[in-house]
């Protein structure tokens, strides 16, 4: 994944602290996620066979991933036969090199882009800029992000952290630098804002000779690429330029059109709460006299094969990027997307990024812990990714990785101590007695207001309960002498 996009992101808890202070962000997120949540619930609620659809979505992905090698080769063969060219990129660097070269071969100095998470994942815009090529985002929200010199913070609505007043300001300030300026006297009426964006983008669409797109699905049996979007800007990108370069991950393949049907039902209801997606573009290679003359498909691995090798972790490759998990996540709703330090935010990002990028950085190691394990994400996932389970799996991986450190962290010592006590009931009783006695000495009016060390992170904002004078076990032994028997001395 890109080293450039979110370089030097701090660990999640530190980034969260700043985000939580941003009242504008908090308000925007609460309103936006609340609205999408309600809309999704309504759209899903009216589908009687939703659970069967989810199960089909999961099973089809799982089967496809099991035979991914076969489907990818079939896809390559069909795309090539239809006049397209397929390029394989092992990692982000290779993918960047391929795309930059393809653009340079056309002799053009600018490209229009339509929403592609993978190009953000690989840091393509930065690589293009370095090669002197201007890349213009044409998805409305991506345009807002680009003009604001910002990062996307949501999978579906990358500018969810901006409200219309901020968008107006960004348009007025930055549109002129990139092309058609915003009309003077632009207000924050959504229709006027959309009109300003339309005028700005129209010029780009009509001029551009090269487009770079993402892909939602790839149908192996015919070599067809599918893009699903709501604005029609994608359709412009996919049809007007002479050269189309589509960049995507190897996991996007589905075997047949019949399989696609399942996802075209699951995706719009899960992501925007719509029954049907507004603009679904499909294309197979190139067509004479219609659309791009040249079509390149760049298939990126970027850690996906490694992820596929992990029996628990591989289910994240089922993801169809609907963002339902973000919209229901109580953590995401409060900290926003930037806190996750990756183009993939929210619960899915917390399980995807540490697998695609590895857990070498502190930021990536902190991601699996950025969840209260409430399970709301799993409940809504249209392809049934058990995100809490993968989070726990990755937490264990991080802990095992840290086990190799010579000096154990205080947390490890505490966990080991807890295991000792909890595997020796007599020690537990002693600890309960000591804890009860100790805390009653420091408690004021029955409350523990301040605890030392890491426990202060609890008592900074919450009172702590005072351990009971008599534990339940002690009460039971006292009141039920007949059941009393020595605690087993089994040890850890």
């Amino acid at each position, binding site marked *: 994944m890109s080293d450039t996009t979110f370089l030097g992101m701090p660990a999640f*808890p530190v980034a*969260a602290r700043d985000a*939580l202070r941003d009242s504008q962000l908090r308000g925007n997120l609460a309103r936006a996620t609340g609205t999408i949540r309600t809309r999704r619930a309504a759209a899903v609620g009216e589908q009687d066979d939703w659970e069967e659809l989810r199960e089909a979505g999961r099973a089809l992905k799982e089967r496809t991933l099991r035979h991914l090698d076969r489907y990818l080769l079939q896809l390559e063969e069909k795309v090539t036969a239809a006049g397209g060219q397929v390029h394989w990129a092992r990692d982000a660097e290779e993918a960047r090199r391929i795309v930059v070269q393809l653009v340079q071969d056309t002799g053009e100095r600018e490209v229009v882009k339509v929403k592609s998470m993978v190009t953000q994942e690989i840091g393509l815009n930065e690589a293009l800029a370095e090669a002197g090529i201007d890349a213009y985002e044409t998805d409305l929200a991506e345009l807002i992000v680009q003009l604001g010199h910002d990062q996307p913070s949501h999978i579906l609505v990358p500018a969810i952290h901006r409200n219309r007043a901020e968008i107006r300001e960004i348009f007025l300030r930055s549109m002129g630098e990139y092309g058609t300026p915003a009309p003077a006297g632009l207000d924050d009426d959504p229709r006027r804002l959309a009109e300003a964006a339309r005028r700005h983008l129209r010029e780009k669409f009509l001029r551009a000779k090269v487009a770079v797109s993402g892909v939602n699905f790839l149908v192996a049996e015919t070599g067809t690429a599918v893009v699903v979007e709501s604005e029609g800007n994608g359709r412009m990108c996919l049809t007007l330029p002479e050269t189309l370069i589509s960049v995507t991950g190897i996991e996007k393949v589905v075997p047949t059109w019949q399989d696609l049907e399942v996802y075209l039902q699951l995706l719009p209801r899960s992501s925007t709460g719509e029954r049907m997606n507004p603009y679904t573009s499909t294309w197979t290679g190139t067509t004479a006299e219609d659309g791009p003359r040249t079509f390149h498909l760049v298939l990126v691995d970027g850690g996906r094969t490694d992820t596929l090798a992990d029996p628990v972790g591989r289910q994240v490759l089922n993801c169809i990027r609907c963002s339902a998990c973000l919209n229901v996540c*109580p*953590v995401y709703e*409060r*900290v926003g997307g930037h806190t996750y330090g990756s183009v993939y935010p929210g619960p899915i990002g917390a399980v995807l990024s540490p697998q695609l990028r590895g857990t070498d950085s502190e930021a990536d190691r902190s991601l699996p*812990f*950025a969840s*209260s*394990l*409430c*399970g*709301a994400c*799993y*409940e809504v996932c249209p392809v049934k990714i058990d995100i809490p389970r993968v989070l*726990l799996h990755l*937490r*264990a991986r991080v*802990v095992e990785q840290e086990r190799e450190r010579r000096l154990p962290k205080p*947390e490890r010592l505490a*966990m*080991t101590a*807890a*295991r000792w006590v*909890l*595997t020796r*009931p007599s020690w537990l009783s002693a600890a309960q007695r000591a*804890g*009860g006695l100790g805390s009653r000495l420091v408690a004021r*009016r*029955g*409350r523990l*207001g301040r605890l030392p060390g890491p426990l202060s*992170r*609890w008592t*900074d*904002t*919450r*009172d*702590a*309960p*005072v*351990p*009971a*004078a*008599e*534990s*339940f*076990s002690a*009460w*039971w*032994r006292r009141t*039920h002498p007949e059941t009393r*028997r*020595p*605690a*087993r001395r*089994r040890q*850890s």
Partner: protein
Amino acid sequence: MRIALFITCLNDTLFPATGRAVVTLLERLGCRVEFPQGQTCCGQMHFNTGYQRDCVPLVRRFTEVFAGYDAVVTPSGSCAGMVREQYGRVAELSGDARLSTAVQEAPPVYELSEFLVDVLGVTDVGAYFPHRVTYHPTCHSLRMLGVGDRPLALLRAVRGIDLVELGAAQQCCGFGGTFALKNADTSVAMCTDKVRHVLDTGADVLCAGDNSCLMHIGGTLSRLRTGVRVMHLAEILASTETGPDHAAAAASAGVTGPAARRAVERTKTP
């Protein structure tokens, strides 16, 4: 039927009144409850924090302590969820085939409301609790166990209760075990919204089936001196016209939250 109570380490140490309420309630419903000695912790804290290997001896202990019972009942949705959802995985991870077998053969573990409604087949447990109460469905009981509206059905049948609906009830309170310490700021932000919804109800008592979540929300309610107290479902269901009315006792003690329990205990300890 041999019924074993799994009290959980948190309740044993911090909230013994909940355990006593479970015993009172089940005995009132005609059950004989046993409390197997040597039980400690389900291992959830270790497992959920990534210390899965440290969890193995706790899983082994649990299967040994509760072997031979017909049912295990526990006043915690998340601990029940740990045993039901994760024990098989821990056993598999340990590579110990005997542990896997022991987990498979372990008695069924029921969260309290499941035990009452599904096993005993009751919703009216004969409780009396004349207070305004709102109920927070904890995440693990809701999504891991799928207890559904069992706790609400039980509460609705309580005489004298003024049960009010909690806004955004299904949203997590932000406890999440070690999440509350590792991501304290986010945890607090989540809890603040939960508390706002609780206060909006005008309830005197916030009820839930997990004292861990109640410790978190209650700790915040107490710090803010809101006067709203928290009670485990078992304690409300154990209250009768003549029996222990924990809330009334707590109110008379003039303190709230966990401290109230302590005050209650003090008055009761013979």
